[in-house]
């Protein structure tokens, strides 16, 4: 509780903010009786201009004109109503509240003799300005992207959906970070069950700090042990608005430019906004291209290993003689060669990401050209294997969502080992495992493999193909039919 005695309040707050140089205690007097007042704030996160102009200036210049009895309890209301030219002003009665508000970038105004205070919203957080999407760049389509500041992100969404049904529910997650997390959905479009379930899951998160939406994702996904992501993400406001009107729920996390989107099904990870912005022939073409690339990225090295070690009869004669000639000098079995090459490729890829851009390019040239060329000419790997690995790597870049493409990269390795141990039987077994898993997976109660299984034919219009835009007016059937329980 705030005390009437200002000195006590100051003592408490100073104790709380011991060793924090950035917390400012500004003491001043008001009125004829020279009543002691206090303003506490953190300089670095407060808009000092607003504070000076709309608080100090108005209060000190105009105060003496009016006759305000500062001894009365109503004085606080009077000041709030007449003198402070700031939009968001709240009355606080608890010291803990004061501490929290100070940390949120607000100024806390206390008056001697009154056991309440005002918290003035003057916060000003440092953030970068709106940039272009980096991981989801498109040739055609809007090119603004979310930033780390949640307020900007909300404004970008509000800009695109002007309806009062667009709800923004605020939560605070993290004992230390008290990160603002906003769950957004369109009431009446999004399924109530999903919204309630999401709220429940978000409220249950018990952690000290949240630094990115990726952490939230791992807390609320249905099957955390699955290699496949069940929650999609995006940095593009246009996708968010499209997903919201499809009945999906978004979670915005302060400090993360990536917005979580769910329920997300398998086909969502293989579609890109560009599919809708170009004409439908090409939209369909790139969709199919992506599905083929998905299969190549997952299976190509293991099929190569299986065919060359177990099923040589499946390879045409002329190709087989070339392959034999190519592999003649290679000392390792095909499966070891494949694992070695894939491992090298992953190392190169990781190295390229970490390094600054100019050096990164040099590394990729050294890696791809020189290392590959030399490995072939020395005879450690065959050049066919280099082709296979390179093509697989390129194919995995076609998958638009990063979290799906890394899951594919991971799954490639067990498949290669299966192919190396039992050939095509192994690949088929691995494929069946994956299929069973995919079909049984759920994302917030929506079957992950819909619309293929369970079958909902109307939604095939927007899966492996994209039908003309006027046939896609309804929201997906599988988003409505949510027969299965949310686990």
């Amino acid at each position, binding site marked *: 509780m705030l005390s009437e005695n200002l000195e006590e309040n100051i003592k408490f707050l100073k104790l709380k903010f011991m060793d924090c140089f950035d917390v400012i205690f500004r003491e001043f007097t008001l009125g004829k009786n020279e009543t002691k007042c206090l303003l506490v704030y953190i300089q670095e996160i407060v808009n000092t201009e607003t504070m000076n102009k709309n608080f100090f200036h108005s209060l000190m210049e105009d105060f003496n004109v009016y006759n305000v009895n500062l001894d009365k309890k109503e004085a606080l209301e009077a000041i709030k109503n007449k003198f402070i030219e700031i939009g968001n002003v709240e009355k606080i009665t608890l010291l803990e509240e004061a501490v929290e508000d100070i940390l949120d970038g607000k100024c806390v105004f206390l008056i001697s003799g009154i056991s309440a205070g005002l918290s003035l919203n003057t916060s000003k957080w440092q953030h970068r300005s709106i940039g272009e999407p980096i991981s989801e760049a498109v040739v055609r389509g809007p090119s603004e992207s979310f930033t780390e500041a949640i307020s900007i992100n909300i404004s970008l969404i509000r800009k695109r959906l002007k309806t009062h049904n667009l709800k923004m529910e605020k939560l605070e997650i993290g004992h230390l970070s008290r990160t603002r997390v906003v769950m957004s959905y369109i009431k009446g479009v999004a399924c109530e069950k999903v919204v309630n379930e999401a709220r429940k899951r978000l409220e249950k998160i018990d952690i000290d700090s949240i630094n990115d939406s990726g952490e939230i994702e791992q807390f609320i996904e249905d099957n955390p042990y699955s290699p496949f992501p069940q929650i999609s993400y995006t940095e593009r406001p246009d996708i968010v608005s499209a997903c919201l009107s499809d009945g999906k729920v978004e979670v915005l996390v302060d400090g993360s430019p990536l917005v979580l989107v769910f329920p997300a099904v398998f086909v969502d990870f293989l579609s890109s906004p560009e599919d809708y912005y170009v004409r439908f022939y090409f939209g369909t073409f790139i969709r199919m291209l992506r599905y083929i690339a998905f299969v190549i990225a997952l299976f190509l090295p293991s099929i190569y290993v299986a065919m*060359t*070690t*177990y099923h*040589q*009869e499946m390879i045409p*004669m002329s190709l*087989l*003689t*070339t*392959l*034999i*000639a*190519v*592999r*003649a*000098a*290679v000392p390792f*079995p*095909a499966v070891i060669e494949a694992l070695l090459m894939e491992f090298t490729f992953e190392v190169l890829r990781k190295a390229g990401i970490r390094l600054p851009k100019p050096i990164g390019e040099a590394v990729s040239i050294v890696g791809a050209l020189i290392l590959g060329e030399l490995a072939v000419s020395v005879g450690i790997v065959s*050049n066919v294997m280099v082709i296979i690995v390179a093509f697989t790597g390129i194919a995995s870049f076609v998958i638009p969502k990063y979290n799906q493409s890394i899951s594919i990269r991971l799954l490639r390795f067990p498949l290669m080992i299966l192919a190396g*141990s*039992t*050939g095509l*039987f*192994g690949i088929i*077994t691995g494929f*069946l*495992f994956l299929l*069973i*898993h995919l079909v*049984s997976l759920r994302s917030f109660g929506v079957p992950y493999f819909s619309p293929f299984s369970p079958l909902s034919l109307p939604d095939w219009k927007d899966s492996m193909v994209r039908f003309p835009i006027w046939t896609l007016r309804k929201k997906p059937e599988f988003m409505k039919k949510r027969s299965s329980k949310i686990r």
Partner: protein
Amino acid sequence: MVGYEKKIFYAVNNNYTNLIINTGCWGRTELSDLGLVTATGIDLEPDGNIRITVISITPTGFGAKGEPEKSNSWIGTATGKTLADAKNNLNETATKNLAWFHNRFIIIGENFAKHGIGDIIDHLSRGRQFRYENKVLITPTTAYDMLTIPADVEKNLVLEIEGIVNSMKEEWSKVYVENFKNILVNYCEKKSGFITGRIHYFKNENTTISTSRGDFNEAGSGERQQYVAAIKGSGVFMDEKLIGWIDGDETQAYMLIKGKARNGVITSRYNDGKDSLSYVFKRSKSKMKAEFDGNKISFNIDIKMTGRIEVLYTEQNILKEEEINKMEEAVSETVKHNLEKLIKKAQEEFEVDFLGFGEYIFRRHPKRWKEIGDRWDEIFPYIEAKYNAQAKIDNSGIISKLVIN
């Protein structure tokens, strides 16, 4: 995992474990250990053993510029009491795992063919590695001799033979190379014969020999260096045994009777033997009909062809209808002549029904077959075979008046 998922998970898991633990073979072979057998020759040795000869290809890696080096062809041979035995004995000298899945030709020596090829058909059809598309060729010498002659133009003899077979497939029904599957089918049917290509080599007297010949060393040294492979005529089989040879024209006649000839060239004399004429048929139809008159059996074979004139040296105006009729007549006569030669050969020389007359009765007149089936080999030489051929020219094959006029 929910219940049903668990069940399926365990089912698949069980199967996979079973696959690993309980299966006997594990077919892991690295590519570099493979020797690709592309042609297999089979002979009967005088002592009754079976000799197998293979041409196996082993690519040896890359040259300095990264281009594949010329692959090594390994010609291996071994004998054994059975074919399987001989195949195993090959491993005594083979440096690679011999794999037969890309085998293209089975070349059978005359001795073995006369002895009967039933054994090898049986053996090869059981194996996993032999494809049914294998072409079967018969050679009047031994398969070993045949497979050790040098290649002329191609890198090895197999590619050479393949080139010959492919170039003959179209437009020329004078050679017919049967594949393994059809031979297997015929073998199972017992009462029907079949023909397949006859491969031989001849000595090339000319000096126009391909340059790649020099690369081929020992096997083709000396006089053999000049040998060239050729496929000409056919070997005739009846009940797994080789019974004789027929030439190209007779092969064409056989194909026409069987209705297998799709394209073909027939060359005949025209205008009272003064001009020669080449006729290409595009379609042919064959009709067989049996007539029974008491004990007398007669067959009617009716062949109809449509086609065009390919080559013609004449001064007649060939656009006139009567000239066209004359030409049709001439071609029909040639075909009839070939048919006569073939049927005579079957009835008088071989005295074996490889033309499928017996099969026809067996299918169309099963009651008759029951009466005469057992004695068919005796009856066949005395049946009366009538044949008729009708060639039609449906277009002249010229686009304007002849230049030489």
